Structures are given as structure tokens and as C-alpha cells.
């Protein structure tokens, strides 16, 4: 966390209004991340690469993560003002406004987003990793993020892969095409809500999900035949 905070301070000194936040990582690995604002991301990345004390010249890993819309049920302590009738000092009933605290379960939907994660190392100074993250606004239409390929060439294929599998559109990428799936493919298979197409092949031990698919497939095939 310490290191991430330091780097955050350095970035904010160099790129005004960068809007970097530290994303803590609770696991024992303690690889804390810096979340960048897409608007300043390329400037921050260039700074990280070129700053003498940081020199994160090696972009090791680029990947995407899909976070679905989350329904969060949380218990909230809610304080309300309620009118209560209490015994007044003179014995008379008096209406009084008091604060009452009650626990309530609230449900809220946290909108999902797509996230890119970058792992940076420094070849010159032999340190790292520095984890950078960026989030899209939502999972449907505002899925643009700036590309880091102009800063680190190593992002070229990996960003293409993230584009292919998650559908994040990298603005500024020189050659944003599908890389693993074929060009005519429509969906983005790594998304959590991706539905596999009905392309079942015979498997003698079909069970669970495969069996379900097999049945659906044969039903569909029956339907087609009729």
C-alpha cells in the first residue's frame, strides 16, 4: 500500500488532475492497484514509463475483467426522526421528535463494468509489479478505454485479445481487430454472461450442463427437421 500511495503522489504531482485512486488488494500477495481515469491514462502511463525513479518500461500483462451488475444487499443503519409521545415533565403527554436508529436491509444495484488490468515492471530498475486498472462506464455502450499500445508496444496483441474476448474498445490502438476468434464472430466469449452457442457434439458421458445442452440441441434439431 505504501508503495502504491507513493506512486500515486508522484503521478498526481506530475499529471495534474490525474484522478488516481488506490485499489487495495486484501489477499496475501498485497499487490495493490492504482485506478486511473481514462481521460488522463495515457499521460499517466507515459509518465510512469519515463519518470527516472519509476521507469516502468516493461508492460508485462494486460488483461480484462468483467464485473456484472451486482445486486448488493447491505444492512444499513438508518436514523430517522420519528415523533414519539413521551411523558412530559408535568405528567402531560408531549409529542417529541427523537432520532431512532434501526437496521434496514437495502438492495441496490451496482452497475457492472469492464475493467482492464495492467501489470508493469521496470527492466531498468528491476522493480515491480505496479498494477494499473481502468474501468469502463458500463458494459454495453460506453466501453471505450484509451489504448496503451503507443506507450508500450507490448500491449498490442494483449489489447487486441481483451477487445476480442471482452469487447473493450481501445481508442488509439493502431490495429484493433479480433485476434483469437475469427473476424465474423459476434460475441465476446470471456464475458460472464456469454451464452455458448448450440454447437453440441456427441459425447457419450454427457451429464450436467453438457447433458442439458445435448437435450436442447436435439430438441432444436428435431424442431428443424419438422
Amino acid at each position, binding site marked *: 500500500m505504501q508503495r502504491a500511495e507513493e506512486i500515486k503522489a508522484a503521478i498526481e504531482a506530475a499529471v495534474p488532475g490525474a484522478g488516481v485512486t488506490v485499489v487495495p*488488494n*486484501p*489477499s*496475501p*500477495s498485497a*499487490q495493490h492497484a492504482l485506478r486511473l481515469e481514462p481521460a488522463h491514462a495515457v499521460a499517466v502511463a507515459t509518465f510512469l514509463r*519515463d519518470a527516472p525513479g519509476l*521507469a516502468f*518500461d*516493461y*508492460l*508485462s*500483462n494486460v*488483461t480484462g*475483467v468483467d464485473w456484472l451488475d451486482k445486486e448488493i444487499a447491505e444492512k444499513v443503519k438508518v436514523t430517522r426522526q420519528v415523533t414519539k409521545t413521551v411523558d412530559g415533565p408535568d405528567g402531560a403527554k408531549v409529542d417529541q421528535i427523537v432520532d431512532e436508529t434501526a437496521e434496514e436491509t437495502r438492495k441496490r444495484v451496482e452497475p457492472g463494468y469492464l475493467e482492464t*488490468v495492467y*501489470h508493469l*515492471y521496470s*527492466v*531498468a530498475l*528491476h522493480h515491480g*509489479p505496479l*498494477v494499473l486498472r481502468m474501468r469502463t462506464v458500463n458494459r454495453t455502450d460506453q466501453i471505450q478505454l484509451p489504448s496503451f*499500445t*503507443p*506507450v*508500450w*508496444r*507490448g*500491449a*498490442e*496483441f*494483449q489489447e487486441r*485479445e481483451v477487445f476480442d*474476448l471482452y469487447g473493450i474498445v481501445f481508442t488509439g490502438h*493502431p490495429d484493433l481487430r*479480433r*485476434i*483469437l*476468434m*475469427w473476424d465474423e464472430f459476434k460475441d465476446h*466469449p*470471456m464475458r460472464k454472461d*456469454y451464452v455458448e452457442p448450440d454447437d453440441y457434439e456427441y459425447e457419450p458421458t454427457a451429464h450436467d450442463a453438457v447433458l442439458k445442452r445435448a437435450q436442447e440441441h436435439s430438441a432444436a434439431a428435431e424442431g428443424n427437421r419438422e
Partner: protein
Amino acid sequence: MSVVETKAERAAGWNRPPAVEPEGEGELLEVAMGPHHPSTHGVFRMDVALDGERVVRLKPVFGYLHRNHEKIAEGASYLASMPYTDRLDYFCSLTNNWAYALAVEKLAGQEVPERAEYIRVILAELTRIQNHASTIGFLLQEMGASGTPLMYAFREREKILDLFESLTGSRMMCNYMRFGGCRVDLSAAWLEATKKVVAGLPAFVDEFEALLTGNEILMARCQGVGVLKPDLAVNASISGPMLRASGVNYDIRKVDHYGIYDRFRFRVPLGDHGDVYDRYMVRVLEMRESIGILNQALQEIPAGPIMDAKAKLRGFRPKPGEAYGRIEAPKGELGFYLISDGSPNPYRYRVRPPSLINLTVLEDMCLGHNVADVVLIFGSVDIVLGEVDR
């Protein structure tokens, strides 16, 4: 040496491959090299535009072997992904195991017993030797040496695979390492057999070098071909022997101090030209260093447990969080990035494949060279399609 770009290069934006203009008039010959081509190491395609035999454009096309390993892993438990990692780079299943185990150990905060660390080092270095030997064999195969170096490499590789089989049960799909240790302990007999094999390896490397290193045809074919400049190599995230052949001193065994590599004395060979010959020689020299590591590890291996006492085989659920673990695999930096949401399956499982990322600069290296050089440069990158396409 400086690995940072000069100002002028930086001003020019990013390192795009320089455009090569065709010399003569007339149409370019567009050749799809692959997916059915003898030297694309499986199913890989290069869309090449040729001016005569000179390459003016080259676009790699991937995905013929894509099976969405990452998606499969998200639907399987942590343990169930271990055998799948064998199938990424099927030449080096043990280092794949190690990288994955390392990432999970980082995620779950597990400790690895000393003996298990030694076993891992021994197996990883054996893997490295057999991978480098076969890579050179394949490289020479692509150079047209009718398989002789490849057969010599496979002769030694067989001995190493026999060791793998007698320890892990399988020659290539070892599935040996576990989170917090290793699956089965090695016996004294295995250790003896390994010592015997390792004792024979220097003679093999000598034979290899006598056959190849001084060969004028090999030198003529390899030297000055497919040059990769160090600053581009770093900028394009090249890793492994390819990066070091360009003269960048970056060996994750030395940098990350993972495992117990700090205990061994070994050096990192570096090339000065970054061409195919340097990539070949760096691999040869790395084999020699690996033999040194093996000799030390086989001498020093202590007795003790091979699994973390706290490690659980069934019902393994790491706490929410994420971790990126990487090792110096024979092909380069192999990393695993895992996000846990506390369930038995990883929420996100990502492989950082060195084979794919090392191909980023394929076009840069090939432009202006011949078709014959393309297969050579491609072979010197050392890829396995199982890992490229995943």
C-alpha cells in the same frame, strides 16, 4: 546500457515496424504461410506480401488452436486448472505448473517447504534444458538440416522425459506441482538417475556445439538476421532468451528471487546483436548454466516434507483478492493473474503467454528479409501454439 528510448524515438510516437517499399514494379505476391505449412509449429498463419522473395508486409494470424482456456478455468476449481496448464506450452508442463502454483500460493499466502522448492528447481531446469535443446533442433529443422540436430535433441530429451515419467507419471502432461508443494516425493533412486542424466548433459551440449556453432552455413544464415533492438524488445514486452539475446539483462530468476534461485550460482548470458544467432547461442549458454544449477540443487537437496501442512486439496477457497505470479519459463515470462471472490473457482484466471507476446515484434524482425529468413526468425522466437492461442 540504456534501455530507455531516445527522445527522437519517443517523439515519433511508438515503435511501429518501419515500412518497406517494394523495389520493382508490378504486383506483390501474397502468400498465406500457414496454417498448413511445414514450419509454423502447428496451426499458425502469416499473411506475407512478397516483393520477389523479400517480405514487405507480414501479419500473424492466430486463434486456430483457441479453446478459451481462461473461460474453462473460470468454471473449474483451482485444482482442476492445474492439468490444463500442462497443455498450454506442452513442452514445458512443469514450469507451467510452477507458474500457476506460484500465483495461487501468492493469492492464498501459502508457504512451500524447502524440499519442494528444490524439487521444483530441479524439474524446472530439466524442463529448460530439454526445451532449449528441442527449440534449437526445430530451428535447425527450419534451416533445412534434415532433422539431425532435432534428433540429437530428442535423444537427450527422451532421457529427461523418462525422468519426468518415473517421477510424475507422465512424460509431458506432468500435472505435478500443487499449491504449497509437490504431489509426490522423489526417491533416492530417482535422484541417482537424475544425477546420471545430468552428468551426461555437458557432453551433449558439446556435441551440439561441435555440430552447429562454428558451422559457416549456420552463421551465414543466422548472423544479422532478424535483429531486435534492445529498446524495442523492452517496449514490446519481449521476455526470456529472446530479450536477453538483445542484450537486456532481465532474468526473472534473478529479478524476482522467486523459489530458491538466490541460493544457486548461475550467470545470465547476454547477446550483443539480438539476431537469430544470438538467440541460438543464448539458449545454448543457458543450457550450460542450467546444468550448473542442477548440479548444485542435486547436491544440496534437503530432506523434509514436500507439502505445506496447511494446504488443502479438497475445498480450497482462497480469500477474496488477486495475485499476479510469474516465473522465468523457458520461453519467457510466464505469468498467471488470478482474482478470487472467495468461491472454489477463480473469478478471473489469466495466463500471460510468453509465446504470444514474443510474436509482437515478428513483423518488425521479418520486414526486408527473405521468405527463408521468415521461418528462421519465427523459429528463433520459440513458440508453442498451445500457449499462443490458449
